[in-house]
């Protein structure tokens, strides 16, 4: 029995805090569907919020777009590798991550090959690689499952199908991101703001790029069951672009961005539940999250403009990004 069924928007939070308090008091930890959703999405938001700023700063967001598309092929590949595990559930974490890594390496390798060896302009090589690999992924899914529904789900995300294993995967990825970003903070900062200098003092620029590729790919894989391959991009870029409007230090941005993502995800889950309770309509949680991120961005823009006209504050000293 789901304790959240029939809950409205504020009741949702009331029940959530009540249950949290109970767990703190020593009640056994059992997660309801909504809580699994919330936890997975929170992990996604944190993971995305930590690498999103670096992707935007290094102008790699369209590359992230490409990685998120090709993670579909990675997951299909993972199925083929571990076809013995095929029973309709996406369970084994290591195999999924392996598939994502292979897809990421394939995408990165092909894109770089196209632009360096074949001398194709960068936008063309990114576009060619990811559309081809994604088409291949869709066709593979249709071939091996005889069911195009799965690829629709991969694009849209389906938070209702999330399970304990998804939570493990996304928590792992979130911790991976937190650990690596903390560990590599100086180098990432240097490489995003002054790459020539970073190279000059001997920071491994290609290694950092590859790390970012792999983290992005892992993040997209962790998120694609929850929000789909495209709304991940909203979580990667949206919170950072919003935070950037009123905050200009990278260290602060790295706190603000995951927080905004977290708020958007929490409200998305709560709204989805309350709309279900009010109208009986299960709306797409990932859609709600994306829409809410857009709303946060727009209101931040509005607030900034009011502030600007009232105080003459000129806002960003950052040139772009």
């Amino acid at each position, binding site marked *: 029995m789901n304790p959240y069924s029939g809950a409205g928007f504020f009741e949702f939070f009331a029940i959530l805090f009540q249950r949290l308090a109970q767990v703190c008091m020593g009640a056994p930890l059992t997660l309801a569907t909504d809580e699994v959703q919330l936890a997975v999405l929170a992990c996604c938001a944190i993971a995305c919020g930590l690498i999103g700023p670096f992707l935007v700063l290094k102008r790699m967001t369209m590359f992230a777009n490409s990685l998120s598309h090709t993670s579909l092929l990675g997951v299909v590949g993972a199925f083929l590798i571990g076809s013995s595990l095929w029973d309709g559930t996406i369970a084994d974490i290591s195999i999924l991550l392996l598939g994502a890594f292979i897809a990421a390496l394939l995408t990165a390798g092909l894109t770089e090959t196209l632009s360096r060896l074949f001398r194709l302009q960068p936008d063309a090589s990114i576009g060619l690689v990811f559309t081809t690999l994604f088409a291949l992924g869709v066709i593979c899914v249709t*071939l091996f499952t005889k069911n195009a529904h799965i690829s629709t789900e991969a694009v849209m995300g389906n938070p209702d199908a999330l399970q304990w294993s998804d939570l493990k995967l996304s928590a792992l990825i979130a911790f991976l991101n937190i650990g690596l970003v903390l560990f590599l903070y100086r180098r990432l900062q240097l490489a995003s703001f002054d790459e020539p200098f970073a190279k000059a003092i001997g920071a491994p620029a290609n290694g950092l790029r590859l790390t970012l590729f792999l983290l992005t790919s892992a993040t997209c894989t962790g998120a694609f069951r929850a929000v789909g391959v495209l709304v991940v991009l909203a979580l990667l870029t949206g919170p950072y672009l919003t935070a950037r409007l009123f905050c200009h230090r990278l260290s602060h941005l790295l706190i603000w961005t995951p927080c905004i993502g977290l708020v958007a995800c929490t409200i998305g889950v709560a709204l989805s539940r309350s709309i279900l309770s009010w109208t009986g309509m299960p709306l797409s949680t990932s859609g709600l999250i994306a829409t809410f991120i857009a709303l946060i961005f727009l209101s931040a823009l509005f607030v900034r403009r009011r502030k600007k006209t009232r105080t003459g504050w000129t806002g960003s000293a950052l040139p772009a990004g």
Partner: protein
Amino acid sequence: MNYFTDPILRAPTIGCILMCVAASLMGVVLLLQRRLLVGESISHAAYPGAILGILALALLGPEWEEYSFLAVLIGALGSSWLGMKAIERMERKIKIRSDAALCFTLAIFFGFGILLASWLQESLPQWASQAQVLLFGQAATLTDEHIMIYALLALGCTLFILFAFRPLQALLFDRGYSKSIGINTRSFERALFWLLLFSIVVGIRSVGVILMSGMLIAPAIAARQFSNHLKTIFLLSALIGALSGLLGNVLSVEIALRYDSLFLPTGPMIILVSATFALLSLLFSPKRGIAFRLARLASFRLRCLEENILKEIWKRREIEFAELKRHYHPILATFVLQRLIGQGWVDRKGGVLTLSDDGQTRAASIVRLHRLWELYLTEQLGWQAEKVHMSAEEMEHILTPELEERLTKLLSDPQRDPHAQPIPQKRPVL
């Protein structure tokens, strides 16, 4: 089976071809403006509008269901226009880098589309199938009305490019120049913008929102490999687009007929076919193709090796084959030696290699180039004599007979190089 006359297959086939032609023409424009990924954002931004169109039709006039494609078209046009405006504003007003603006816009619009789609699914389930089609496209259910629109669109794109070719060319290659010679760049860009929106929005029905941008990219890339002339690129791109539309459609139908219940979606098939074309032309196009480039490089390296070995034998009069193998890669050395013997430049007696008369001439001419270049560097460019050897090692393979003649004249037919070695005299090469 005839794909052009069969009443069921006719519409998808012709529809796909026309749609692909229009998209690949616009793709060339984007390729040259280096904005190919804009197509990705536009096609995703069209999704919520298309669903709103279905919603509006379902709520306002459900009796006009057969015109739903028009509602989809209008809605999609509206929202992709909005998406483009949003990207523009983000870039200009709040200085967001263009890739981040593209990515953010496409994710937000698509997310909103997902929200609307889930609402449609729940509240008006009988209309939901129309929304699902938009994701990956469904060419099989195209009708003759669609063809009319696609034909108009393809015709529009072609006519625009035909009649405005000159100014378009100027605009694509040098915007500032075309402005200065009085071309109205603003209205041209606006016209291109609308054609682009139309071609993407219309293609969504058969290829789907997610993969539509691939239809713009691949044919243009393929065509670009073959030519440097804008006209040829446009023509080729349209041709490749049309072929991929046809082949993708035919493949999808044939596979469904051969293996029942294996319905490979047409949109991804078309994308795969056009990507195959792009890949093949990247590999094998005569001028830019990687295969020919690598072959040219390999043949140059081989010639250098041949000439170096000839030179080596010339300097020592004769050389042990075993020693040659120690100096160079043994397999390569054997291969090159076979060629040299085949050409009659080298004689092999036992393990000892000597030059034939022709070989002597050939080797002497290489050494002559080497020493001429050394002399040129020291006498004319003031290099020190001990530094010129490395440069001459490279130049001896590159200098042409004309250059040799000029050098001889410039240095007034010298006899000795900077290291006091004799420069072999020019003899006619047989």
